């Protein structure tokens, strides 16, 4: 094994094998047999006509191999119609090539019958799975190397080995207390505020997070209420008057 097959076109993988026919020659042979035609003197017009009829009833007419044979038959038919001079030596029967192919194919079918019989007999016998000759590894002597060589190899491996990818996590201080102060200051001035009022413009992620945590913390403490009337709507911050009153 090992050697690769010629690449197969995905379109070629489609195998037409309808009914008993394994190809156009098979179909042609069965026609010839059915009609009891002399293979050496094929009435090409009749055969071509029947071939076309068969492939249309077999719904094989989309299969290129069958169409190619149909075209070949029609070509031979046309060639047979050409007038030829009497006594011309060089005349070659346009059917000769077809006859040769049919005979050759018939021989293949005969071998197929034989192979089928043999494989059918063999199929009814079981063996242990067939083991092809094992591929023996080439004989190797004991390895010989010095300690220095071994250490050198280790050294090379270590140098080649990639440095581990270490992430350094830099702690980024959140200023939750500062944000709490800002929010408290804003709410001291006005009862209502928007998210955008408490977050500085062009805020860094850490600032946004600080404000968010501050709001949640203050809401937990009961100093304010957070409302979002619908999804993605701006968050409304309001001084919690109820708890103030309490």
């Amino acid at each position, binding site marked *: *094994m090992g*050697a*690769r*097959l*010629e690449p*197969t*076109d995905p379109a*070629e*993988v*489609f*195998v*037409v*094998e309808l009914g*008993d026919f*394994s*190809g*156009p*020659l*098979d179909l042609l042979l069965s026609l010839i047999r059915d009609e009891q035609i002399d293979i*050496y*003197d094929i009435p090409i017009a009749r055969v071509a006509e029947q071939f076309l009829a068969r492939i249309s009833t077999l719904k094989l007419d989309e299969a*290129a*191999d069958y169409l*190619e*044979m149909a075209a070949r038959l029609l070509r031979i038919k046309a060639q047979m119609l050409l007038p030829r001079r009497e006594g011309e030596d060089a*005349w*070659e*029967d346009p059917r*000769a090539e077809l*006859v*040769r*192919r049919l*005979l*050759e*194919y*018939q*021989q*293949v*079918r*005969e*071998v*197929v019958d*034989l*192979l*089928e019989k*043999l*494989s*059918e*007999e*063999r*199929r*009814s*016998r*079981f*063996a*242990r799975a*067939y083991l*092809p000759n094992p591929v023996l590894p080439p004989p190797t002597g004991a390895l010989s190397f010095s300690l220095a060589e071994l250490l050198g190899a280790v050294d090379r491996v270590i140098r080649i080995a990639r440095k581990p990818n270490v992430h350094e996590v830099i702690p980024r201080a959140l200023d939750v207390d500062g944000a709490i102060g800002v929010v408290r200051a804003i709410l001291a001035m006005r009862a209502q505020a928007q998210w955008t009022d408490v977050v500085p413009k062009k805020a860094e992620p850490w600032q946004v997070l600080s404000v968010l945590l501050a709001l949640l913390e203050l809401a937990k403490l009961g100093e304010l209420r957070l409302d979002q009337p619908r999804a993605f709507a701006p968050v409304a911050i309001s001084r919690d008057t109820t708890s103030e009153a309490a």
Partner: protein
Amino acid sequence: MASNLDEPGESVDSALAELRDHYEQDGHGVELLEVAGGWQILTRPEYTEAIERAQLAARPQRLSAAALETLAIIAYRQPIGRAEIEEIRGVNAGAILKSLHERGLIDVTGRGEGMGRPLMYGTTPTFLEQLALRHLEELPRADELAIALRAPRPALQNGSDEQQEETRQRAG
């Protein structure tokens, strides 16, 4: 092991013959057959059904008619290229060659002459094993087949000449 292998071929052969007779005479379920240049112990056909019923083993899938045709052509014409197989069968052979190759029945044996140096295919020992053949020569020679072709190209011309004679006589 080593001492067994060192024994001359003759005694290996006689040991094999002894084993074969032993299987034969003592009514064993298996027999010893010479296959693909080696020996193989196979169950006897009369036990096929029992073995299958006991689900100890399943028969391999049958080859399709198209696959058998391709295999037949390769067996008799090897080494042979894909184009020649397609020419004989009148059908595209790509998919079938692939599946025969996957089943280990054929292998690429080299590259042919000519345009594109096509891959040439041949049958494998597995092919012989699957048909319980000792070697390829066990298949009938091409000229022993009922429908013997009058050899390849040159003789063929004569063949078609004769046939033209016939046709002309008939026409005349």
